[in-house]
C-alpha cells in the first residue's frame, strides 16, 4: 500500500462517518415531521387544559403597583425591522390606535412600549427581556410570528405576563407538544388548523388541483401550516409530489424551480412570508411554470405585489380575516387609514391587533384596583379576566377556548381567499 494511502485511511473513515451521520439525521428528522403532522392536524381542540383560576398559587405574589403619575405599560412585540417590517408595523399601529381610543384605566394612562423581535428565534428572547424590564408592564400584544412565540412562551409564563397575539397562526403555539397549553398565551386569530384545511378545500374544489408541490419556511409557522395543508390535500384525494423548505433570506431559488418544473404539479403551494414567496414565484414563472399558485396569510401583503410584479398575476392567497362589514369595522378602517396614512388591510392583522388590545383593556378595567393613590394590578387575576373575554370586536366576536384560541363565530367565514387580478387582491367567493 502506498505511503499516502495509509495516512489518509482514517480520514476517509471520518468522511464516511459524517455521511452516515447526515443520513441518520435526515431519517430521524423525517420521522419526527410525520409524527408531528399527525398529532397537530386535528381541527377540534381536546379539552385537556387546567380550568381557569388554576394558576400556581399566585395571590399577592405577582402584583404590579403603579404609583400616582405613572403609566400602565402594554408591550408590543413585533417585527419592526427588515423584510417583514410592514407586517409588524401594521400590528403595532392597530394597538396604538386602540390605546388612543380606549383611554385611561382608573385615571391612569396606558402607554404602548414596543420591541423588535425580528420574526425569528434569535430576536425573540432579547425582545421579551426588553419588555419585561419595563416597570409597570402588565401584558403584551404577542408576536405575529409563531417562530418567536414558541421560543418565548416559557419566559412570559415565568413572568406571569399574558400575551395576546393577533397574527400568530401555527397550531403548535396553542397545542404545544408534551405539555398543557400556556395559560399566558391567547390569540385573536384562528389557527392554521383552520387555514390549512380551508386552503386544501380551495385547492381541490376551486382550483381543481390533483397534484401539488409544497414549499415552506422552515420556522414553526411555515412548517405547521404546510403540514396541515398537505395532510388535508391528501385526505381530499390529492397527491403531494414534493415538499421542500427554505430559510428566511434565501434569494436564489433556481435549484428548487428546476425540481418543481420537473415535477410539473397542478399547483404550487407556499407557506412562508412575502419576500421569499415573491422571489420564488417570480423565478418559478421565469422558469416556465404555468400552473396555479396558492399561499397563506404570511404572503398576502402589499409588499408581495410589489416584489413579485407581473408574476403575482393570478396567484391565490388566503388569510384569516374579518369579512362582515360591521359598523365597528367600518369606523376602525376610517380611523386607521386617517391616522397612519396607509390602508389597514395592506397587511393582515390590524383589526385583530386592535381587538387584542381590547382584551387587555377590558381585563384591566375589570380587575385593576386603587390602593390610595396607586393602581394595583394582580397579574394572575388579570390573566383570568383575559381568559373570560367576551365581546364583539372589530375583527369579529372574541371569546377564548381552553387553549387560548379565539372561538369561531357561528356563520362567519374564518378564512377569506383572494386572487391577484390587475395588480390587486380581489376577494373570491368561497366559504
Amino acid at each position: 500500500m502506498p505511503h499516502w494511502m495509509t495516512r489518509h485511511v482514517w480520514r476517509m473513515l471520518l468522511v464516511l462517518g459524517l455521511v452516515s451521520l447526515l443520513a441518520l439525521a435526515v431519517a430521524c428528522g423525517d420521522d419526527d415531521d410525520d409524527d408531528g403532522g399527525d398529532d397537530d392536524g386535528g381541527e377540534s381542540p381536546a379539552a385537556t387544559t387546567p380550568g381557569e383560576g388554576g394558576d400556581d398559587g399566585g395571590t399577592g405574589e405577582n402584583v404590579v403597583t403603579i404609583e400616582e403619575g405613572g403609566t400602565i405599560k402594554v408591550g408590543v412585540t413585533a417585527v419592526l425591522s427588515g423584510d417583514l417590517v410592514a407586517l409588524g408595523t401594521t400590528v403595532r399601529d392597530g394597538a396604538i390606535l386602540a390605546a388612543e381610543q380606549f383611554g385611561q384605566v382608573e385615571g391612569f394612562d396606558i402607554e404602548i412600549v414596543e420591541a423588535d423581535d425580528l420574526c425569528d428565534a434569535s430576536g425573540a428572547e432579547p425582545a421579551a427581556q426588553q419588555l419585561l424590564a419595563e416597570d409597570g408592564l402588565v401584558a403584551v400584544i404577542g408576536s405575529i410570528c409563531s417562530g418567536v412565540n414558541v421560543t418565548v412562551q416559557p419566559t412570559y409564563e415565568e413572568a406571569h405576563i399574558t400575551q395576546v397575539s393577533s397574527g400568530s397562526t401555527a397550531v403548535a403555539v396553542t397545542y404545544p407538544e408534551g405539555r398543557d397549553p400556556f395559560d399566558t398565551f391567547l390569540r385573536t386569530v384562528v389557527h392554521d388548523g383552520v387555514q390549512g384545511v380551508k386552503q386544501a378545500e380551495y385547492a381541490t374544489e376551486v382550483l381543481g388541483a390533483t397534484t401539488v408541490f409544497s414549499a415552506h419556511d422552515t420556522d414553526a409557522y411555515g412548517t405547521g401550516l404546510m403540514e396541515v395543508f398537505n395532510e388535508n390535500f391528501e385526505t381530499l384525494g390529492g397527491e403531494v409530489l414534493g415538499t421542500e423548505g427554505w430559510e428566511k433570506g434565501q434569494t436564489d431559488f433556481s435549484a428548487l424551480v428546476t425540481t418543481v418544473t420537473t415535477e410539473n404539479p397542478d399547483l404550487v403551494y407556499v407557506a412562508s412570508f412575502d419576500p421569499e414567496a415573491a422571489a420564488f414565484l417570480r423565478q418559478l414563472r421565469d422558469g416556465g411554470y404555468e400552473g396555479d399558485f396558492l399561499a397563506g396569510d404570511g404572503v398576502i401583503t402589499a409588499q408581495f405585489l410589489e416584489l413579485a410584479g407581473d408574476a403575482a398575476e393570478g396567484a391565490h392567497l388566503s388569510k384569516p380575516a374579518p369579512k362582515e362589514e360591521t359598523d365597528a369595522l367600518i369606523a376602525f378602517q376610517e380611523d386607521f387609514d386617517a391616522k397612519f396614512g396607509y390602508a389597514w388591510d395592506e397587511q393582515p392583522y390590524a383589526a385583530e391587533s386592535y381587538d387584542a388590545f381590547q382584551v387587555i383593556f377590558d381585563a384591566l378595567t375589570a380587575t385593576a384596583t386603587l390602593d390610595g393613590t396607586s393602581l394595583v394590578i394582580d397579574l394572575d387575576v388579570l390573566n383570568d379576566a383575559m381568559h373570560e373575554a367576551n365581546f364583539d370586536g372589530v375583527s369579529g366576536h372574541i371569546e377564548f377556548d381552553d387553549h387560548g384560541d379565539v372561538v369561531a363565530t357561528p356563520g362567519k367565514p374564518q378564512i377569506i381567499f383572494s386572487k391577484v387580478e390587475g395588480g390587486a387582491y380581489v376577494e373570491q367567493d368561497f366559504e
Partner: protein
Amino acid sequence: MESTGIKERAPLVIGLAASLLAVLYTAFTTSRDETFWADQFINGITIGSLYALIALGYTMVYGVLRMINFAHGEIFMVGAFAGWVVLREVFGGDGMSDAMIVPAILVAMLAAAAASASAIVVIERLAYRPLRHAPRLAPLISAIGVSIFLQNLFLRLTAGRVEIYPRIFPQGPGESIDIGITEVDYIQIFLIGSSFLMMSALYIFVQRTRAGTAIRAVAEDRDVAALMGINANRVIVLTFVVGAALAGVAGVMYGLWLLSIKGTMGFLPGIKAFTAAVLGGIGNIPGAMLGGLLIGLSETIGREWLNELFGLGLGNQWKDVVAFFVLIGILLLRPTGILGELVGKRA
C-alpha cells in the same frame, strides 16, 4: 508558493473524480431525466461563479495580509446598491430604451466597482491599517464591526425595505438558448461568461503585470518585498481594491439576476464565498474559483445527487448543510484546502 507533489493530492483527486463519476452514473440511472441534471448543473455553475467572484476578494487579502476581511460581503452589497442607483437615477430604470440596456449595464458595473473600491479604501485606512501590527485577532474583529456597521447603515438608508432592480435583463420563458440537452437562460450565460472573463483577467493581471508581481511578492514576504523597493502599503490597498471591484461587479450581476437587494443581502453570499475560499485553499486564486464552483455545485446538484444515491429526502432547506458538509469533508482530507499551500511553517 509551495508546490505540492502529486502524491499529496492523490486522495483528493481520486475522491473528486469518484464523485464526478458517481454523479454522471446517477444522472443516467435515476427517475430524473438528463435535462433535470443538466439544469441543476447549470444552476450550480451560475451561483458558483458568483461565489467564486466574491471569494477572490477574501483569498487575495488573506494571501497578502493573512487577514480575513469579514466585511467583504458588505462590499458586495455596496456594489449592488451603487449599480441600482445608477440604473434607476441615470438610466431611468424600467423605462429605459432597449438600445440603452447594454451601456447601462456596463456603466452600472463600472460604478459599482468604483463604489466598492472607494468603500474599501476608506475602510482599510480607518479600520484595518491602524491595526496592521496588532495581534491577528484585532483586525478580524474590526472587520466584523465594519460588516455590522455597513449592514445597519444600509438598512437605515432603505428603511429596512427590499429594493428592486430594474427588470432590464431579458428573463422569463423563452429567454434562453437551446443547447440540446436543455435550455440555458441568457442571464445564466451572462453571469457565467462575465465571471469567467473577470477571473481570467484577474489571473493574467496577477501573473503577468508588474503590479501583479508586486502583489505576489508582498504575499510571499512583506518585509523582503519592502527591501526590494516595493511600497507594501500601496500594494495592500491595491489588493483590497481589486477584490472589492470584483465583488462590486458581482453585486450588480446578482441584482440583475435576482432583482431584490437589501442591506443584509451580503451576509449569506459572503459566508458562502468565504467557505469557497477556504475550500479551494485560502490565499490561492485558482483555488477560490474552484472552491466557488464546488460550493455552488454542492448545494444544487450535489444535494440532489445525495438524495438519489442514498435515498435521502434532502429538500432545498438542506442546501447549506450539504455545502458546509463538503467543506468539512474536504478539509478533513486536506486541511489547507484543495489547492492550498502548506502554511504550517509560516504560522
